[in-house]
């Protein structure tokens, strides 16, 4: 049976991991490649880098990181952040990324999703959706870290990007992100049931039950988390063992 995936996510700015980690035995807690290697050793199913570099002159640093990472880490690697053109997608893939995640640019220019997936294949294109509840059972797509309501229904937008050729959806609840209160399960389920492509749940993980709930109640195909892994609260392996104990198929 196909395993549900656990994906640690690293925020990277100007070539360094933002929050750092407290893996005690890491030589360099800010080195994204070393942290990715550690997650690989713990059994992570994929690794996602989110490049939040603000200044454009430092943005190419992510390419070197991906190149290094691709030489040492042999699991799928997704990169997102600042992707605006098909050329950006191509450069990231050529550096060694397996999938590229498109967020704001997809909202501003939906044709980018169609164009990119036609050029490089749907399997390489992830559309990231940041969603926030606007009424009971209703969510809108937001940009700018949850500040701008772009007026799109999140479930409808998910269906739309699927029809444009997205291969996967990375769904983040902006209400839950950073709260450690668990995924927005109603949102996750609404999107996961509406589309025929895999959905990665994100935003709000504070403990291992949250990860399992994302799959069992949210019906996500994969779960993404950052802080619970970075700060050494749990290893990826512990997360998988916990999910397995809750009857979820995982790669151990």
């Amino acid at each position: 049976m196909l395993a549900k995936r656990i994906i640690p996510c690293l925020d990277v700015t100007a070539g360094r991991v933002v929050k750092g980690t407290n893996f005690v035995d890491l030589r360099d807690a800010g080195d994204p490649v070393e942290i990715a290697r550690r997650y690989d050793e713990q059994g992570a199913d994929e690794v996602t880098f989110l490049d939040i570099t603000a200044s454009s002159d430092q943005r190419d640093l992510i390419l070197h990181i991906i190149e290094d990472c691709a030489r040492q880490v042999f699991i799928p690697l997704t990169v997102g952040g600042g992707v605006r053109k098909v050329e950006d997608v191509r450069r990231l893939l050529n550096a060694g990324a397996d999938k590229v995640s498109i967020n704001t640019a997809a909202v501003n220019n939906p044709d980018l999703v169609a164009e990119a997936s036609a050029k490089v294949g749907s399997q390489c294109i992830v559309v990231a959706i940041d969603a926030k509840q606007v009424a009971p059972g209703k969510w809108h797509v937001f940009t700018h870290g949850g500040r701008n309501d772009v007026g799109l229904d999140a479930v409808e937008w998910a269906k739309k990007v699927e029809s444009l050729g997205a291969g996967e959806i990375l769904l983040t609840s902006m209400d839950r992100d950073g709260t450690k209160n668990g995924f927005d399960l109603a949102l996750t389920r609404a999107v996961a049931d509406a589309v025929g492509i895999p959905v990665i749940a994100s935003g709000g993980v504070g403990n291992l039950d949250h990860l399992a709930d994302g799959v069992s109640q949210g019906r996500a195909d994969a779960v993404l988390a950052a802080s619970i892994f970075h700060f050494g609260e749990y290893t990826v392996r512990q997360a998988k063992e916990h999910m397995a104990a809750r009857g979820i198929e995982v790669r151990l």
Partner: protein
Amino acid sequence: MAIAVIDYGMGNLRSVYQALAHVAGDKEVLVTSDPAVVQKAERVVFPGQGAMPDCMAELEARGLRPAVLEAAANKPFLGICIGLQMLFEHSEEGNVPGLGVFKGNVQRFPEARMVAADGSRLKVPHMGWNQVWQKPHPLWDGIADGARFYFVHSYCVQPEDESLVTGSCEYGVPFTCAVGRANIFAVQCHPEKSARDGLRLLQNFVSWQP
């Protein structure tokens, strides 16, 4: 003596190159679209991603068909993903002929059977880590039966000859995910993205003396 990774312009071969280079020891790994380099290579890797009609068209456009067929006939040859599918006679995807090295077709996961045990819909593409059940073959050496490999695909091969099957998998339906005959081994999954077990498979290929 080099290991040639055949590049026909479809997608990114960096992952395949990196993983092979990681296990190849002092053997050289060359990503090439030059038939002469393929001809001279000691062993050949035939990868592929995207849609099979595009892959076949690009392969023809670069004049690589004879070199691929020759390699498949006489030296250690590893097909990966679409590189497995192209070895068969025909694909439902775009209704195109393949290379016809093996008898059989490539078919899409049957929509009607894409239902999980809990009644939920199984998504296509089949993406993620699934268990591979082996038939004895030297390329599985050191890899546990049922080990998980990384898959991304919507179509599967259906060999006419059961004895070709060296690995099977299950996603809504049981399907063939590895085939082998003489000097050829080909897998639907991506060993270059399948962590330790994937590297082991590539390492086994690098030292394989069929």
